[in-house]
C-alpha cells in the first residue's frame, strides 16, 4: 500500500478552480457552494474586454436606454459598476462583495461580447473543502483540483504567482 502511495505524494497543495472552457454558465455555482454567498465570483479579464458601450454582460437583452438604471442591469445584485472612460468606451468593474457567482453576466458577455467576464473560484474566499460541493453538482465537470501555485484557469490574465 505504501509503495502505491509514495509516488503519488506531492509537496504542493491543490485548490479548486473552474475551467472556463468547460463552464456552461448554468448558475449552480451560486447555490451549490457551502458558503453563502458563493466563493465563486465573476472575474474580469480587462485584457480581453472590448470596453463596449452596449455590454452584453451589463445590460439586459433588448434594453432601451444604455444607462445605469436598475431596470437595465442584468446583474441581480448590481455588482457590476459601469464607468465612462472616453467616447465610446466604458469600463466594467465587479464588486466582489456583491457578486454571488450566478453567471448571468458571464453568459451575456460570452454570447455577445469577448468573453472577458469569467467565473472563477476566489481563492481568498474558498474554504478549499476536501471535496468541492459545486464540483459535485457541476453538470459539465468544469471544476477540478489545480496546483495552488497556479490557481486560476481563466483566460486573458498575466500570471504573477506562477511557480
Amino acid at each position: 500500500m505504501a509503495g502505491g502511495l509514495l509516488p503519488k505524494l506531492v509537496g504542493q497543495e491543490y485548490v479548486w478552480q473552474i475551467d472556463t472552457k468547460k463552464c456552461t454558465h448554468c448558475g449552480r455555482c451560486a447555490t451549490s457552494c457551502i458558503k453563502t454567498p458563493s466563493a465563486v465570483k465573476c472575474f474580469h479579464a480587462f485584457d480581453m474586454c472590448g470596453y463596449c458601450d452596449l455590454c452584453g454582460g451589463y445590460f439586459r437583452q433588448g434594453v432601451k436606454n444604455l444607462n445605469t438604471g436598475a431596470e437595465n442591469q442584468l446583474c441581480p445584485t448590481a455588482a457590476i459598476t459601469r464607468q465612462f472612460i472616453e467616447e465610446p468606451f466604458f469600463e466594467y468593474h465587479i464588486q466582489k462583495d456583491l457578486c454571488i457567482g450566478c453567471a448571468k453576466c458571464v453568459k451575456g458577455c460570452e454570447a455577445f461580447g469577448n468573453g472577458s467576464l469569467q467565473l472563477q473560484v476566489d481563492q481568498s474566499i474558498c474554504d478549499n473543502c476536501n471535496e468541492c460541493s459545486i464540483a459535485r453538482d457541476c453538470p459539465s465537470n468544469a471544476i477540478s483540483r489545480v496546483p495552488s501555485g497556479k490557481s486560476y484557469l481563466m483566460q486573458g490574465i498575466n500570471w504573477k504567482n506562477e511557480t
Partner: protein
Amino acid sequence: MKKSIYILFFILSAIFAFQSFPVNAENRFPKPEFEQGHIQPETITPSPRLLLLEYLDVAVLITALSLISYFILKKRSRKLVFWTSVFSVLYFGFYREGCVCSIGAIQNVTLALFKDDYHIPLTAFLFFIIPLIYTLLFGRTFCAGICPLGALQDIVGLKPMPIEAWLEKVLGIFPFIYLGLAVLFAATGTDFVICRYDPFVGFFRLDASFTMFMIGGLFLIAGVFIARPYCRFLCPYGALLNIISRFSFKHMTITPETCINCRLCENACPYGAINMPVQLKEKEKTETVVRRYILLSIMVPIFIFTGGFLASNFSSGFAHVNPKVKLAKELKNNTNYGMGEKEALEITAFRSSGQSMDELNLEVAKIEKEFYLGSWILGGFTGLVFGLMLISLTVFKYHPDYSPNKATCHSCARCMEFCPVKPGVL
C-alpha cells in the same frame, strides 16, 4: 461608431440568442486604444492560503497529539484533556473550519491509491498517518481531544447514560460499514461521503444546509445523553483506530498502580469501554471449545460470501450515485429530472461537450464494473467484521482487574479520577 456596435449587437443576438458559445481566442471586439491615456487595470487574482500555513497545521497536530498523550499517560489529568479538547475545537474546528481532517483524509488516500490522475498533498497524507502512528504508540489519544468532531461531542457530553452491551456491539459494526462505503465511493472517484455527511462541519463554518444543521444538531443533542454518538457508531476513522489501538504499545490504564477492585470506576466510562473483571470460571471442556471454533471458522467464510453476495446485488444502486452513471441512465431511458419541460442541465452540458454516447457508455461500463467488484469486497468486509465480532463475543479471557478496552477506549481520562489508588502509595 455607436450605431455600428448597435447593428452588430442585433446581428449577433439574432445568431447567438439563448445559446452559449465557446470562448474564442479571437476577440469579437478589438481591444480599444485609449487616446486620453487611460491605463487598463490589472485583473486581481487573490492567492490561496499559504503552503507554509498548511505545514503549520501539521506541526500543530503533532504538538497537540504529543501534549495530550503526555496529559493522559503521565499527568493523568482529565482537566488538561478537557482544555486540549477546547483548543482543538477552536483551532481545527472553528479556525480551520473542520478541513483538513484525518477522517476525511481516508478518502484522499483511497483516491490516490485507485485513481491515476489524483495526487495527494503531503499534508493530507500526514493528517491521515500521524494519528495512526500515535494510536499505535499510545492508544486513541487522537480521539480523546484532538479530533475536532470528537472534542466537540466530548464537551457536550454532560449527562451520559450507559447503553446496553448488545446494542453497543451491534451499533459498533456501523463504523466499519461506513468505512467500507466511504472507501468504495472514493475509490471509484464518485463522492467523498464522509465530508458530505460530516455532521459538525456546518457548525464549525457557521454555514450549512438546513438538513445538515438538523443532523448535526440532533447529534449534539443526542450527544448530551449518549456520549459521542458519531465517534462510536459512525466514525470511519474511529473504526481504523479501533483496530490499531488493540496493538498499542503503551495504552492508558485506569489505575496508576495495581487495581484493588474497589469498583469505583465501574460506571465512570461514558463509552462502556471498561473491561469488567472476569473471574476464573469452570474450565470449559476442550471438546466444546474446539467444536465452537470449528463452527465459527466455517461460519466466517459463509458470512463473507453472503455479505458479498448481498452487497453485489446493490451494486447498481451504489453505482447510480455516480453522476456519470446517472447521466447515462437518464439519456438511455429518455427520463429527465429537470424541472417541467426544461431539459436537465446535465443533459445540455453533455450534448455541448461533444462527447459521444458510446464514449460515455464505455466509461460508465467501466465504473459499473468497479462498483460490482467493490460491492463484493464491501459486503465481504462487512461479513468478516460481523463474524469476528461474533467470535470476540465467545472469548472469555481471564483478567482479575478493571482495565480499559483498548479498542473502544477513547482515552478521555474520566475513569482515572475515580481511582482512589495514588501512584507510589501501594
